[in-house]
């Protein structure tokens, strides 16, 4: 691999893996737990296989993955691990039926075989290689130096909307760092700010937690007081030394654009056609929700096709297209390097390319293969080499110092997505429980036993209520009733704990049940919400 300083261009590919905490042992089957199961099956395990293949082929790749604490807490949870295995068994059973159903339709049979292999391999990898804990797979590649693992805010709160409460910002960050250390046994060096949400002053909390860098939207950096002299092609530094890596817009657009982004190519697999909706109810009944509520099963046989009339998906045609797209991606970067080199040549041109991890595999079925081929192509490239943010900081520790602008990667670049008519009602209640939580830390500065347990659980409930997922879901319109119920549940749970403490009457049975249900952040200390 070329040395960073000898390369013309640096590719910093960053995947942000996040899901909200969804765990419902009180139900036999819970629809929203499928968010996790689908992500494990279609994104995380295929990514680990990609890394394994690269390792076997001798490719010394570099990639950054941010894991939100809610996601890792679920990945290491024995209850959800067992549920995922049940889910996999069910899919393997369905794939066996699909092999029989499609035996006379060659195009469908190819896909049925592919799904059968996918779920069988997932089962073997999950149980035999990772012993149900896939975080260890990622840690292995961290230890090998291929992956840089970083954290995110504890429950993925959109931090700018809570900037009035420094206690919340600190609680989100400290809890995240503690959770990361517990899961990966290492201290994170960087953080993914949820939704790239930044507000001036946030960097002081990051510095306090010894976090060295974060990823920003492009305009957060470009609208800084002083114009970044290297644009988005190099990081900048906050005044306190925390480094900021701005998103490079063109490389993100290549993959994200709904018009000409790679995942929308007509030969790739169609996400919306699924046998959960297409086949007779009697056939899919065991694999959908109770009461015959049809849901995605993951078995999808069609290509995007570009019209209402869908063609069958052809894996070999898709594979050729991936090669084409990888070539195009690198061609576009090399072109950009030539242009940027007319402005500066004292450093390589950095491309910070952050994406939602779940885009690769879950939404864009061919995504993990794209990453594999891209990493192979970069390894062979004469002009571009891999780079993680820490590699860059270690090579170029001094960067332009600027005052960043309030920003996010949401619609219009600020906080609109998480604050509009569909979701603004939550903030009165969230602010109230935050203030009550801070008050509890003052009232109970040092308690033990049942009261301590109640206070720790109160802190968990506050954190869970703050997740950015709930207002995003309310705004985007998917499973809105669930998001509303989750926010309300955590708020009411908090109030119940607060009232119990006021009455000095904490019900052990109820508290234990709640602790078992919302069981993340085992080592949390409620004093993390102490008044600043």
């Amino acid at each position, binding site marked *: 691999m070329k040395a960073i300083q000898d390369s013309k261009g640096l590719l910093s590919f960053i995947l942000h893996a996040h899901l909200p905490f969804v765990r419902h042992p009180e139900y036999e089957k819970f629809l929203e737990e499928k968010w996790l199961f689908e992500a494990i099956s279609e994104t995380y395990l295929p990514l680990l296989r990609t890394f394994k293949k690269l390792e076997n082929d001798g490719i010394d790749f570099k990639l950054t993955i941010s894991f939100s604490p809610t996601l890792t807490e679920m990945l290491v949870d024995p209850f959800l691990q067992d549920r995922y295995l049940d889910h996999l068994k069910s899919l393997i059973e369905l794939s066996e039926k699909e092999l029989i159903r499609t035996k006379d339709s060659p195009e469908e049979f190819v896909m049925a075989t592919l799904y059968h292999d996918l779920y069988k391999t997932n089962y073997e990898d999950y149980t035999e290689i990772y012993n149900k804990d896939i975080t260890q797979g990622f840690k292995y590649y961290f230890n090998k130096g291929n992956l840089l693992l970083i954290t995110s805010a504890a429950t993925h709160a959109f931090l700018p909307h809570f900037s009035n409460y420094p206690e919340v910002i600190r609680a989100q960050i400290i809890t995240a760092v503690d959770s990361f250390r517990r899961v990966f046994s290492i201290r994170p060096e960087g953080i993914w700010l949820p939704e790239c949400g930044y507000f001036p002053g946030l960097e002081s909390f990051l510095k306090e937690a010894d976090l060295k860098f974060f990823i920003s939207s492009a305009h957060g950096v470009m609208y800084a007081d002083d114009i970044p002299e290297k644009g988005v*092609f190099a990081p900048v530094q906050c005044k306190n030394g925390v480094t900021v890596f701005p998103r490079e817009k063109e490389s993100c657009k290549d993959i994200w654009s709904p018009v000409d982004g790679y995942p929308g190519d007509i030969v790739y697999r169609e996400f919306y056609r699924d046998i959960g909706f297409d086949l007779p109810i009697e056939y899919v009944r065991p694999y959908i929700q109770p009461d015959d509520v049809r*849901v995605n099963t993951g078995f999808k046989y069609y290509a995007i096709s570009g019209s209402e009339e869908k063609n069958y998906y052809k894996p070999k045609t898709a594979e050729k297209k991936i090669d084409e797209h990888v070539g195009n991606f690198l061609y576009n970067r090399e072109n950009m390097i030539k242009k940027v080199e007319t402005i500066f040549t004292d450093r390589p041109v950095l491309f910070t390319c952050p994406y939602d991890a779940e885009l690769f595999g879950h939404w864009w079925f061919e995504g993990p293969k794209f990453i594999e081929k891209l990493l192979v192509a970069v390894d062979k490239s004469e002009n571009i080499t891999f780079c993680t943010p820490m590699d860059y900081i270690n090579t170029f520790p001094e960067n332009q110092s600027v005052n960043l602008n309030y920003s996010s990667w949401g619609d219009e670049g600020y906080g609109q997505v998480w604050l509009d008519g569909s979701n603004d009602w939550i903030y009165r209640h969230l602010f109230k429980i935050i203030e009550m939580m801070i008050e509890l830390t003052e009232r109970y500065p040092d308690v033990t036993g049942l009261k301590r347990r109640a206070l720790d659980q109160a802190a968990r409930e506050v954190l869970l209520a703050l997740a950015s997922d709930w207002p995003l879901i309310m705004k985007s319109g998917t499973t809105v009733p669930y998001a509303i119920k989750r926010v309300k549940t955590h708020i009411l749970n908090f109030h119940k704990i607060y009232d119990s403490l006021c009455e000095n009457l904490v019900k052990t049975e109820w508290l234990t049940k709640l602790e078992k249900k919302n069981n993340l952040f085992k080592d949390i200390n409620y004093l993390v919400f102490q008044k600043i």
Partner: protein
Amino acid sequence: MTKERLELLSDDVIKSLAKKVGVRIKLDWDRCQIINSIIDVMDEDREEKESLLNLAVSIESKKYAVTIDEELDLSYDFDEEMVLPDRYNENMVKFLLRDNTWGFILWDINDAQYQNYVNQFGELNIILRVNELKNGIFSKESIIDFFDIEVEKKERRRYVNLPHEESYYFVEVILSTEFKEITINRSNVVKTSRDHVNYALNDNGKIKSIVELSGFEFKDLSKRRGRNFNRILPFDTIGEDE
């Protein structure tokens, strides 16, 4: 909501759902026409919602797409009835920056205190006073401008347009009579952000080029200065369902 799923529902539920999504049922419509209209309205709604989301967020929302049934409520049995109070009957005001020029105000006035003032001074108007400050630290001397918004007693949240980028604002909740003003509460200070590249007069061509290569346009700031209005654009949230 899929057509198949709708067809499983009773006539009463279908009619109630039609009302909920805003379909006006004509007298001569049969069940099938009602269902088709519901599907059409929900499709339009979905398209509108999707068009409002940018790339990052729409991709992000895909991971929640285990079903295409957007309003699916599986009516999980939660232990208790989940009713949150409309308010907490307290004196409070919070000010959030929504984007570079829009703020969101949340406020409340304690009933007993309000009644106390009514008993003393008679009929009262409630005013939100949006103050612009010279810097980020509150003092009466650093107020450089303000404007008032009269609100109804039952209102407790409102979006306001803030006239200037890169300026500091805070909000006061005021009870007023013809002769007297009582400040009930004062919010935190927010700073509106810059929504453009901060070109300096001596910026050279290289800066312009790197800005453009970074995906941003050069804008002549001298043309922007006339766009600020010291007024509120109406954006009333009263009556929105929670």
